[in-house]
């Protein structure tokens, strides 16, 4: 079954659950720009041509690249598409587009779904979540959103401000902690992040905390320092709480270009990532980055930031994502 048919079929039933409905709306809104730049352009293109020709393929190339799908993947896809269209004698623009989309996304549908996105909690000890990422991607804000999410689920959450490098980073997290009314452990500027982790782990054990979220400095420029720093933090954490950190999330800015994947690869060399959080998806017109990240890294996208409000961080749902990106609320 083609992807469009699958998605339309799945989402044709009215959502009964109100919560599901709200989630769907968030996806629709957050990905509106991406859809306009991708699916809507594809459709507009198919209406301008009666038959596909080399110009048509040129325009397809432009749409894909401008959606930050990546040059290599784009060229590969178009090669496949061209040979398929020749072999099977497909010249109708609408069908070519559907073939293209199937090629791009079908793998994901087939390989997806088995992953649980929610943080998996430990029995009888605090769960430790380490959050990493380069500067300016929205790490601290994502941490606040995650904290809120699990507070709402009745968990006792605390924060650790182990980004002792950037001026103001600790204060920023402190403000969030007081807004969220959750405990926070901090250290002085330029102090050892590992000592912050130590204090935080102790506090978490003594106060029966369910989830300890650790903010780290986003210093990718100096990989060696970062590596040493993270290794030391891990050592300290696991000495206090067995197997900590239990989750390590990498935060990536959705507006990042080809470097997004590179960034993820670099971090993966340094730490064992258990998930990716994509932020600022509402501000970008290219949803393409999500595909390449999962393709090249095998690390699942666990959460996706669809807006600026505190509850705009959603568990990543591939079907919702594809539906919002490709189909949207079409005027049928």
């Amino acid at each position: 079954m083609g992807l469009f048919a699958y998605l339309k079929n799945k989402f044709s039933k009215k959502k009964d659950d109100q919560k599901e409905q709200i989630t769907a709306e968030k996806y629709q809104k957050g990905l509106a720009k991406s859809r306009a730049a991708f699916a809507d352009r594809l459709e507009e293109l198919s209406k301008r041509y009666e038959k596909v020709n080399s110009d048509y393929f040129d325009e397809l190339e432009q749409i894909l690249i401008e959606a930050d799908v990546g040059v290599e993947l784009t060229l590969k896809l178009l090669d496949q598409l061209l040979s398929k269209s020749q072999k099977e004698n497909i010249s109708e623009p609408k069908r070519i587009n559907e073939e293209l989309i199937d090629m791009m996304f079908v793998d994901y549908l087939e390989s997806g779904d088995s992953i649980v996105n929610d943080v998996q909690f430990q029995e009888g000890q605090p769960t430790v979540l380490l959050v990493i990422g380069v500067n300016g991607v929205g790490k601290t804000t994502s941490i606040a959103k995650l904290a809120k999410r699990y507070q709402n689920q009745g968990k006792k959450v605390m924060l650790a401000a182990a980004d002792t490098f950037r001026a103001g980073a600790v204060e920023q997290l402190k403000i969030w902690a007081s807004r969220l009314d959750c405990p926070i452990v901090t250290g002085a500027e330029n102090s050892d992040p590992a000592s912050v982790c130590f204090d935080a782990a102790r506090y978490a054990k003594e106060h029966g905390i369910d989830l300890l979220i650790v903010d780290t400095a986003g210093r990718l420029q100096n990989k060696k320092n970062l590596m040493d720093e993270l290794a030391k933090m891990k050592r300290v954490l696991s000495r206090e709480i067995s197997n900590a950190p239990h989750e390590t999330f990498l935060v990536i800015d959705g507006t990042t270009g080809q470097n997004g994947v590179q960034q993820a690869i670099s971090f993966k060399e340094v730490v064992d990532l258990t998930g990716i959080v994509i932020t600022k998806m509402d501000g970008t017109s290219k949803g393409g980055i999500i595909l390449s990240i999962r393709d090249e890294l095998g690390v699942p996208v666990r959460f996706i930031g669809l807006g600026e409000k505190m509850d705009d961080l959603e568990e990543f749902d591939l079907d919702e994502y594809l539906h919002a990106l490709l189909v949207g609320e079409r005027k049928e």
Partner: protein
Amino acid sequence: MAFESLTEKFGNIFKKMRRETTLTEANMDAALREIRVALLEADVNYKVVKAFTSDVKEKALGQEVLKKVNPSQQLIKICHDELVELLGADNTEISYNKTGLTTIMLVGLQGTGKTTSAGKLALLQKNKLKKKVLLAGLDVYRPAAIEQLGTISKQIQVDFFEMGTDVDPVDVAKKAKERAVAEGYDVLILDTAGRLQIDEALMDELKNVNAAVHPDEILLLVDAMAGQDAVNVANTFNAKLRLTGVIMSKLDGDAKGGSSLSIKYMTGLPVKFAGVGEKLSDLDVFYPDRMADRILGMGDVISLVEKAQEVIDEKEAAKEAKKLMKGEFTLDDMLKQMKTVQRMGSVSALAKLIPGMPKLTPEQQEAAEKRMRDFETIINSMTPYERRHPETLKFSQKNRIAKGSGKTNADVNRVIKQWEKSKEMMKQMQQYQKSGKMPPMGGMGGFR
């Protein structure tokens, strides 16, 4: 450096071409196709790449293939000229008012580095241009943004203006300007909150700030990691605010920063500064022509020389030269040299500017910087006499120095070896000076 991978790619393409004897349409096509892919992978905007490659092709085809000229050189020249044109052809600076206050407003998306760049810009103006600078924090939304700017202003010893977070940014801007005028500041830098270009309410707020204080410069922060969308962001901000230029941040990361090419081409907005590191001194004026050189693998020697001139105090230099002529060179002198280099920015930032040196891995750079720090610790553990006469050190003295600095005897010996080498180099430099020739990067050879 951000453009390293682009540089490498061009290098590979031209290496392949060097084996060809003539520039034919066929072999040029292959190179151009690779250039195109390289540019696209560097996040250069699709339309810009298209225009660039077709321009280069047109120019190359229109020209007769010159006899006895290496075909790759010819294509390098055409590519280079075209890149310079793309990047803006001229060197672009802030236009300061001749008298009175110059107001600069920084705007951009969240997380692009506005606050850090505000601090870097202030430091550059204070140190390099001897301006009296006032920093003002208008970001009343992001938690601790004002505190961050306050901390930075303390670090760089620049005055700071804020009215907390429970206030309209337009009022902060007005009051800041009043104070800047009243107290005779040369430059006022307004750090605004990050916002999405599609957020109407916040974009209107910027328009109101603009109307209230009429900044002389409105600079858009663009992250080197930005993708194809960067041009749209620049366009929208420009339409609302009439921007005067761009600051490219995070050019030290591994992002290729191709959007610097795109933005100039698509909006006409010049890139005026480039953020090249995490230290507050790591902000550079953006030179389009030099950036084009760097893309083509020629290095950025001119930048390096200028940077060196800025740090070395003229008088100090004269004093040193006199001492050197007498043949004196102590460990203290060596340490001073090292510190000068450190002040120019980290070794890693410098190494990237020198052609033929971009192959240093981050680990090697880290090692070089650590060695400098070790040297300093060891030299600081010596008595003044020992620093002047390291050649007299005996085993027991070395032992004491090693213990005092927490290093080994071998480390101490390494310092002395380095001193001997540097001294030898100094002698050579004198001979160069006497013969009137330029020494090859004198005195810096020891730090790799």
